[in-house]
C-alpha cells in the first residue's frame, strides 16, 4: 500500500464557551472533537457520518486549516499542516479544497462565475491570459457548464448548477484532496444524483481523494471506499464500506443504519431486524450506548478503546 496522503492523528477541538459567573467569568469547554485519527489514501473516498453536532464539520474545517485544532496533528504527505511548522494558506490551498453544503451561500453573489475561478488562479501565480482562459473553460466543461455561462452571476443559476460551480472552484487549483461537507444534502433528489455522478466521475478523472461528510448513509454507501462513524466527537466505528454496511458492530452504527428511511427496507417489511441481534463484545470489553441518550458535551468522553476486529474494521468499546 502507498503511504497515505493525509494523516489525522489524535485530533482534539475544544470551543471555549463563556457563560455563568459574574462578568462572564466561568469558562467551560465544549468538546467538539475528541481524539480523532484516520488517514486517507490517494484516490480514496473516505466518508465521515454521524448525527448533527457530532463534530463532522469541525473536523473538515480543521483539515482545511479553518479551525485551529486544540491538540493533535494533521499531516499532508508526511508534512505537518498544523502547529508552528504549518504552511501558509497559499501552500495549503494547493493541497486541499472544499465543497460546501449550501450552494446558495457558497458563492460570492457579487462575482461572476468566471471571476470566482480567475481570482484564485491569479493569486496562485497563473498570469498568462490564455492559460487562465483555457483552464477555466476546461474546468467549466468538466463540471458540465459552458464557458459562456461563466459570465453570469450566481443568482442566475439553480442549486445544482451552483454546486457544480462550487466544485469547479474547488478543483481549479488542482488539489489532491477535496473535502466535501454534505455536498448534496441541500439539493433536490433528482439533482442530487447528477452531483453524485459528477463527483464520482471527477474523482476517477483526476485521481482525487475525497473526505466526504454526510449524515445520509445511502449516499455514503454509494460513494465511499471507507467509512468513519462519528459519535460525540469520537470515532465509534471505522472500516471499509462493506464492513460497515454489511456487518455493523457498534450499536450506534446499527441504529443509524436502521433509521435510514430506505424505500426498499420498508417495502420488504423487515425493519429493525438488524438492531436486535448484537454480536457480543470482545472479552474484557462492553458495548457503548446506542447514542439515544445525548452525551454531555462539556465533559471529555468516558475512556474507551478502538479495537480492530479484522480487515481494518475498527470498533469502539468501553472497558468492562
Amino acid at each position, binding site marked *: 500500500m502507498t503511504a497515505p496522503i493525509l494523516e489525522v492523528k489524535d485530533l482534539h477541538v475544544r470551543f471555549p464557551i463563556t457563560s455563568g459567573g459574574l462578568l462572564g467569568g466561568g469558562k467551560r469547554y465544549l468538546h467538539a472533537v475528541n481524539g480523532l485519527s484516520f488517514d486517507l489514501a490517494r484516490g480514496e473516498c473516505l466518508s465521515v457520518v454521524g*448525527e448533527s453536532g457530532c463534530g463532522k464539520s469541525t473536523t473538515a474545517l480543521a483539515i482545511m486549516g479553518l479551525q485551529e485544532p486544540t491538540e493533535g496533528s494533521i499531516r499532508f504527505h508526511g508534512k505537518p499542516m498544523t502547529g508552528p511548522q504549518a504552511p501558509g494558506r497559499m501552500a495549503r490551498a494547493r493541497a486541499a479544497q472544499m465543497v460546501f453544503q449550501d450552494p446558495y451561500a457558497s458563492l460570492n453573489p457579487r462575482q461572476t462565475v468566471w471571476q470566482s475561478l480567475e481570482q484564485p488562479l491569479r493569486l496562485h501565480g497563473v498570469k498568462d491570459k490564455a492559460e487562465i482562459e483555457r483552464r477555466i473553460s476546461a474546468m467549466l466543461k468538466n463540471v458540465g457548464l459552458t464557458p459562456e455561462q461563466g459570465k453570469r452571476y450566481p443568482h442566475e443559476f439553480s442549486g445544482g448548477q451552483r454546486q457544480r460551480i462550487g466544485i469547479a472552484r474547488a478543483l481549479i487549483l488542482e488539489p489532491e484532496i477535496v473535502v466535501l461537507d454534505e455536498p448534496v444534502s441541500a439539493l433536490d*433528489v433528482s439533482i442530487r444524483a447528477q452531483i453524485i455522478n459528477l463527483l464520482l466521475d471527477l474523482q476517477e478523472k483526476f485521481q482525487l481523494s475525497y473526505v466526504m461528510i454526510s449524515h445520509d448513509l445511502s449516499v455514503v454507501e454509494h460513494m465511499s471506499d471507507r467509512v468513519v462513524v462519528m459519535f460525540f466527537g469520537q470515532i465509534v466505528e471505522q472500516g471499509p464500506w462493506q464492513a460497515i454496511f454489511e456487518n455493523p458492530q457498534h450499536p450506534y452504527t446499527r441504529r443509524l443504519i436502521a433509521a435510514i*428511511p*430506505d*424505500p426498499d*427496507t*420498508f417495502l420488504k417489511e423487515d425493519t429493525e431486524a438488524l438492531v436486535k441481534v448484537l454480536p457480543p463484545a470482545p472479552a474484557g470489553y462492553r458495548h457503548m450506548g446506542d447514542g439515544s441518550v445525548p452525551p454531555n458535551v462539556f465533559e471529555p468522553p468516558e475512556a474507551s478503546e478502538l479495537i480492530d476486529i479484522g480487515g481494518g474494521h475498527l470498533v469502539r468499546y468501553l472497558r468492562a
Partner: protein
Amino acid sequence: MSAPLIEIKDLKVDVPLKGGKAVPILKGVSLQIMPGETFGLVGESGSGKSVTSLAIMGLLKKPLKATGGQILYRGEDLLTASKKTMRNLRGNRIAMIFQEPMTALNPLQTVGRQIAEMFVLHQGKSWAEGQKLAVEALAAVKVPSPERRAGNYPHQMSGGLRQRVMIAMALACNPDLLIADEPTTALDVTVQAEVLKLIRELCAERGTAVLFISHDLGVIASVCQRVGVMYSGVLVEENDTRALFSNPQHTYTKGLLGALPRLGSRTADSRNRLVDIDSIIADRSVLTQERYIAPRITEGGAAQ
C-alpha cells in the same frame, strides 16, 4: 364503499399579477384521501406540495389565491366555506404540522399552554383542564416526564421533542385528517425514524387520515399507503405505494426513483450509476403533460 374524507377536484391556485394575468402555481390538482388513509405527496422543491396543503387548511396567504376547483371535506366545499366553519374545522377536524419545529411554536409560551389552547378553543375547556389534558397529550406522544415538559418553553427542548409537541398539538382534538408538511426534514435520521414511527402508530390507532408531504421517497415509503407525485403544480402520478415504487409509470417518477442511491444496491466491485432525469428526458416541460393516476383498489378489490 366509503366516501373520501377529502376530495380535491381540479384545484387551481394562482398568483395574480397586475393587468389581469396570473402565474399558475397549482394547475388543476385532483386527489382523494380516504378516512384513515395515509396519503403521501412527493415532488421537488417548488412543485406545489405546501400550497396544496395550505389550500386545504384555508391558510393561503396574500399573493396566493385559489381560482378554481373544489376542496370537498365530507362533501362540503372548503374553498367557499364561511370563516367560522373553517375555524371550527381547522385544528379540530383537520390539523397540521409544519416542517420547522423550531419556529412553528410560540417561543414565549410554555408548550403545555400551547397544547392546552387546542382544548380551550375547540372543546370549551378551561385553561386548567386544558393544561391537564395537555400533559396527557404529551404522554401520548411519548414525551418522557410530560408533567415537567409541559412547563417547558420550546427553546428548552430538542428538535425531536418539539416535533412531538407539534404532533401532540395537532392530534389533540382527534382530527379526521392530519396534514404533515415535511415534518422530519429538519431532524436527524435517528430522531426522524422515531417521529415517523410515532405518526404512523398514533394515526393508525386513532384512524386519522394523513396527508404526508415530503421530498424524501424513503420517508414516504415508510409511512404511506398511497403516493402522489407532484411536478410543477401538477399531480403527475398517483398509485399505491408498493405499486409506485416497484413499477413507476411517469418519466419523472422513474427519474426520481433511479436517482436515489438505494441501500444495499452497491456490490463489492461496482456501483450502478444513478439515473439523471435530464439524461432520460431533454425537455422537462413535457413532463406536466404525462399523467398516470392509478385507480384505487378498495378492500373489496374493485377499482373505484
